């Protein structure tokens, strides 16, 4: 059995390629490389997803969006893969892309003041494809179970090639090499 590994917020934000507003994991409570991880995210009412919610709405309107719940879980799983595979800056031209999920059951809601505990398990890793399952808890309430989530590692250039011609043309002044060389967060 491997030694548990924990990550603080600074380490999490350096490991993920996301900018600060989209880093949806605050710390890693424990991690067994190649096996499992527990990631923590605290929900607060000052987050961007609450900025347009009118004052005085009922609590159910303040449920943390499932889309962000899923993204937060996915980032927890990504941290397990990144650390287990020692991905470094030299690999910055590759991105971990969430491609599919099955049987995600939403059993409850989370609200500002709650702390999400994502428990992800690495089911299988084949070449550049990662299979993950897991659960999300708030204290003693399980609010989400993830039957299967699949992510793939792809060269950023391949992702760019699959983008629409119109969207690529909007990046006037940036060559593909310039984009690749600036993508160094991982």
């Amino acid at each position, binding site marked *: 059995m491997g030694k548990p590994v924990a990550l603080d917020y600074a380490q999490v934000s350096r490991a993920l390629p996301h900018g600060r507003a989209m880093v949806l994991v605050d710390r890693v409570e424990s991690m067994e490389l190649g096996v499992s991880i527990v990631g923590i995210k605290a929900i607060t009412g000052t987050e961007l997803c609450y900025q347009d919610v009118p004052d005085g709405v009922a609590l159910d309107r*303040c449920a943390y969006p499932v889309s962000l719940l899923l*993204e937060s879980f996915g980032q927890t799983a990504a941290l397990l893969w990144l650390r287990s595979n020692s991905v470094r800056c030299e690999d910055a031209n590759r991105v971990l892309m969430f491609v599919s999920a099955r049987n995600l059951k*939403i059993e409850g809601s989370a609200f500002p003041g709650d702390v999400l505990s994502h428990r992800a398990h690495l089911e299988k890793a084949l070449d550049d494809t990662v299979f993950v399952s897991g659960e999300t808890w708030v204290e003693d309430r399980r609010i989400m179970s993830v039957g299967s989530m699949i992510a793939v590692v792809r060269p950023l250039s391949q992702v760019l090639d699959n983008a629409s011609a119109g969207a690529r043309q909007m990046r006037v002044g940036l060559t593909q090499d310039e984009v690749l060389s600036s993508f160094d967060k991982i």
Partner: protein
Amino acid sequence: MRFPAGQKLCEKNFAAPLCALDHLEVHENEGIITFRGTKIIAADDPYMAAHFPDFTIFPGVFILEALRQGVIAALGECHGILPEIRTVRSLHFSAPLLPGDEMILDATMERASEQDSFEAVAACRRKDGTAAARLKVEFGYGKTGSA
């Protein structure tokens, strides 16, 4: 309560990462509800600058968010409760959406075996016809285990 066909979606009274649809058209025929939602992917939308700092890609989970917002607008409230995601049966992303792309989301909803739940099947594509995502999601009014 339903959104009139063609009404622009721009207001939220619930937590959401962004306004995930610019326009929505809803139709109902013999108990089956269909809608088409569209959005021009915008780099200055919330969260977008952070995904990722040096190259912006519309987060795949925001396609799920778009379906959610379309369902809320199409079905409306029931006794003050909004429809919410209960189960994501399957979700598959096949192409990225970048700023400037137009996202087109077509969804069909049918009432499920449980009285207060609906099955939504949706396909998302870019305006150039490229398939971007497929989703099968169960929605219902209220979730069990809420605080």
